[in-house]
């Protein structure tokens, strides 16, 4: 084996480079790591650097072991666990830093770089945005250039040259990666379940609704999901994206609570044309999938629950894509069983006395349930109710307060109090959460639904119609449903809603950026087993036939590798041609410096003879160089040594001006 050589030692410049690489890989982790982890990393990195520049002693095995044990204990204490994503990353980051303390030779650095690659992948567990991908690509160039540096076996850093080599390698690897990305069989579902990390901060709908909850969501411009319609998109007033259904009221908050006995929902009766579309759903760590009311053709791995909500079999913890077919003309819940009926009528007793009294009077005035509903909606329309993002606070009897005192509220106030009233009027009713509307992106021909489109509406059950959607908000503010949240709530824009800014330039930029993101999500992040099957089918490859796939991968990769290797050789030869011309240029420049400018019309031979006539002393050199040049440039099969001879000649050719005093 190679003996430890001087060239294998780590110079301060190399160490600095290594530290930079480490910092680049760890930096994106800093915001979601515990602060002490970042601090420890910084301290250890500083120590590692001092060891190299001050030639301090490396810590002994015992100290390193102690450090490893201490950090494991610290992580376990701080994260409550050693497995899982967050604790794992913290541990990995600390280990990477500790590795710095034992860097003595190139061997240690190689292991360090390998750990670095692994840390790059862990970043993708937190963010898979385009920005992160580009950043990590650069981090990989950095790590790879470190490997190049090590394989040079000398003391120099060669930073620029190494980066160029690493960049070339990565660029050449790109087409191969693409082939593997497309063809490598994707397996549906995880190999094993990892413990879910707690305290995931997410924005999105929850399965409860209390006054103020949705209005806080409405301030967020984060994308909830994007929709691509196969045909024309339905009109805005039909865009009700159904989410969780809330049936239980505790006096302040609505909860979703399923029946003790789950019965399968009846079939959805539908008519009219089916609307087919693909939804790219951002992870929200809940089980429900959003779909246009009412989903009829549902994706694999999902089901429709007793409340007609589309549910996934497991939490949506990754960006997913699914295809749904919906009908906007439908009928659900022909029959309501006794238990279900009671579930949708029950209310906490004694609260809201004024509302109860009003409901009693209404019940006496109108016998028909349709009339009761109409009357309540008319009241919403005619009384001075207002739609606002900043409603006043409500007291203990929140429905009384809202209906008779404040009369200003957001969709959750209207939906909640409406359902409350309906139940008092003996009409089974419930709250439905979801999104309403969305913004059409003409650039990408898809609909963006943001958190700000979150909405709550009501469903009432009528004996001859089943469950019927009623949106009390539209009675108060018809613009909300017809033109969207910003038309209904101009105040939202002033409170920081940049996205749907009035400025058309900014708006277009934002939409353009979003359409890029959508494509990224659709084609890169959402490329899963199902999408791969469809895509390969279009290419005429059967994705179930492993043999077929393996042969395709091998043949395409082989062809590409061959092509790259040919290109590399071609490149090599072309460079030599270039350098011949460049060297001749140097020759001409040197002659120009002593007063012989080559004219544009002058061929190399004419130029040479002109100069030779005036400068006999240079004649031999000039004629030789010109002959070499012509032979290399235009000759057939120039001898192999000619190029280096040509080069040497030009290197040595340093003509000087003749001094006047010598010439008589």
């Amino acid at each position, binding site marked *: 084996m*190679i*003996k430890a050589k001087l*060239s294998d030692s780590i110079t301060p410049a190399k160490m600095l480079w290594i530290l930079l690489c480490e910092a680049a890989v760890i930096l994106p982790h800093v915001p979601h790591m515990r602060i002490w982890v970042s601090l420890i990393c910084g301290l250890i990195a500083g120590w590692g650097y001092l060891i190299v520049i001050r030639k301090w002693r490396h810590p002994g095995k015992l100290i390193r072991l102690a450090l490893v044990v201490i950090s494991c204990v610290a992580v376990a204490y701080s994260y409550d666990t050693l497995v899982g994503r967050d604790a794992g990353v913290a541990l990995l980051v600390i280990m990477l830093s500790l590795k710095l303390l034992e860097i003595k030779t190139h061997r240690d650095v*190689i*292991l360090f770089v*390998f750990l670095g*690659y*692994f840390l790059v*992948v862990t970043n*993708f*567990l937190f963010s*898979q945005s385009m920005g*992160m*991908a580009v950043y*990590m690509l650069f981090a*990989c160039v950095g790590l*790879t250039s470190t*490997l*190049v540096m*090590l*394989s*040079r*076996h*000398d003391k120099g850093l060669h930073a620029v040259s190494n980066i160029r080599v*690493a960049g070339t*390698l*990565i660029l*050449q*690897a790109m087409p*191969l*990666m693409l082939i*593997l*990305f497309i063809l*490598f069989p*994707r*397996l549906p*579902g*995880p*190999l*094993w379940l*990892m413990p879910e990390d707690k305290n995931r901060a997410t924005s999105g709908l929850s399965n409860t609704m209390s006054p103020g909850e949705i209005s806080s969501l409405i301030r967020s411009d984060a994308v909830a999901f994007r929709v691509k319609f196969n045909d024309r998109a339905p009109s805005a007033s039909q865009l009700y994206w159904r989410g969780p259904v809330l049936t239980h009221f505790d006096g302040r908050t609505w909860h979703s609570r399923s029946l003790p006995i789950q019965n399968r929902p009846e079939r959805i009766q539908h008519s009219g044309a089916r609307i087919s579309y693909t939804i790219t759903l951002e992870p929200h760590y809940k089980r429900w999938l959003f779909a246009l009311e009412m989903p009829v053709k549902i994706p694999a791995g999902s089901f429709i629950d007793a409340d007609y909500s589309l549910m996934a079999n497991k939490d949506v913890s*990754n960006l997913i894509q699914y295809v749904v077919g919906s009908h906007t003309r439908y009928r659900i819940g022909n029959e309501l069983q006794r238990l279900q009926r009671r579930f949708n009528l029950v209310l906490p007793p004694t609260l809201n006395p004024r509302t109860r009294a009003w409901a009693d009077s209404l019940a006496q005035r109108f016998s028909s349930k349709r009339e009761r509903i109409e009357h309540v909606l008319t009241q919403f329309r005619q009384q001075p109710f207002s739609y606002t993002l900043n409603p006043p606070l409500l007291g203990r009897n929140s429905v009384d307060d809202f209906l008779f005192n404040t009369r200003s509220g957001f969709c959750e106030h209207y939906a909640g109090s409406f359902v409350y009233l309906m139940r008092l009027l003996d009409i089974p009713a419930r709250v439905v959460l979801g999104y309403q509307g969305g913004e059409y992106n003409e650039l990408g021909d898809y609909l963006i639904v943001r958190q700000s489109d979150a909405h709550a509406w009501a469903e009432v059950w009528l004996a001859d119609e089943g469950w019927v959607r009623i949106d009390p908000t539209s009675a108060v503010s018809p613009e909300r449903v017809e033109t969207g949240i910003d038309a209904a709530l101009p105040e939202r824009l002033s409170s920081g809603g940049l996205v749907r800014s009035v400025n058309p330039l900014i708006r277009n930029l934002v939409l353009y950026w979003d359409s890029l993101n959508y494509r990224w999500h659709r084609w*890169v992040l*959402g490329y*899963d087993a199902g999408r791969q099957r469809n895509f390969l089918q279009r290419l005429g490859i059967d994705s179930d036939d492993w043999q077929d796939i393996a042969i395709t991968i091998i043949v395409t990769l082989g062809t590409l*590798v061959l092509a790259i*290797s040919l290109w*590399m*050789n071609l*490149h*090599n*030869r*072309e*460079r*030599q041609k270039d*350098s011949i011309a460049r060297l001749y240029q140097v020759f001409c420049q040197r002659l120009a410096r002593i007063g012989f400018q080559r004219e544009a019309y002058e061929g190399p031979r004419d130029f040479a003879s002109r100069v030779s006539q005036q400068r006999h002393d240079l004649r031999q050199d000039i004629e030789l160089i010109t002959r070499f040049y012509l032979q290399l440039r235009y000759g057939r099969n120039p001898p*192999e*040594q000619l190029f*280096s001879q040509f*080069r040497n000649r030009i290197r040595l050719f340093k003509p000087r001006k003749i001094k006047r005093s010598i010439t008589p």
Partner: protein
Amino acid sequence: MPGLAEKLSTRTLAGPEQEPIVLHRRRIYILPTRYGGLFALLLLLMLIGAINYNNSLGFALTFLMGSVALVSMLHAHRNLAGLQIRCGSTQSVFCGQQAVFPIIMNNQNALDKIALRLEIKDNDPVHINIPAASTITAKLAMTSRQRGIIAPGRIKISCEYPLGLFHAWSWIHPDCNCTVYPAPEKDAPLPEFEQQGLGMGQSRQRGQDDFSGLRRYQPGDSIKTIAWKQSARGSGIFTKQFSGAGGKTLWLDWDSAATRSLEQRLSRLCQWVLQCESSGLEYGLRMPGQNIAPGKGHRHRHLCLSALALYGQRTSPA
């Protein structure tokens, strides 16, 4: 495994090759290094992670790094391919010294050849860079263990550039060798002088600086002894003869260097040759089956020392 790889890769290399040796693509072999294996393991781990979390960018990165490794193999291969190699002339050494084989490598490609490693088996390797379109000589040292003629045999030329994941190598067998003189014996007794009847210089007591005449210049004569006045007349260059130096011829006799073993005898004779040469004496060598007529100078010295080096080894190829 390395043994097997060596066996397979040297299979076609029977003996010394004709120069220049060109590293064609077909004679370059390539295998992953230990780190290459480790890297594969790392990629496997990354792949499992990507599958488990169904992480598209995880897949992308795994495939990218795998492809980078694959492409680096091409680069390692190219880093060796096309090199033209010949062996320069060697300088004879005394046994125990390092024989140096200048390996002249010509890189005609437009790209530099980086971190090439040349190694004669059981000797220290040499790392070398060869810039594009230029020629560089690597000096490969080999410890001489016995007198005679030594050859480096198969030389391994390899590189792990650019990522250290693949080891590309080729075996070359340049036709070069180096004469190893016997090691001169330390503190050898002085040779016995045998006087030649040339009519001059019988009396040693005259002193070495006495001028005794002129003779035509021979290569190897010291510049101090040139008779500049006489030489300036234009009829050739002359060297001054001194009775102490030129007047005596020594025969270094095999029989007078009687010691215990053959090698010791050769060592002693070697030492005598060196002593005679450094004191400017003319000397001849008398060996069984071979007599070298008296003379002096660099070539004569080499002739004598080679005869000693090759004594009893005539069967080996020159």
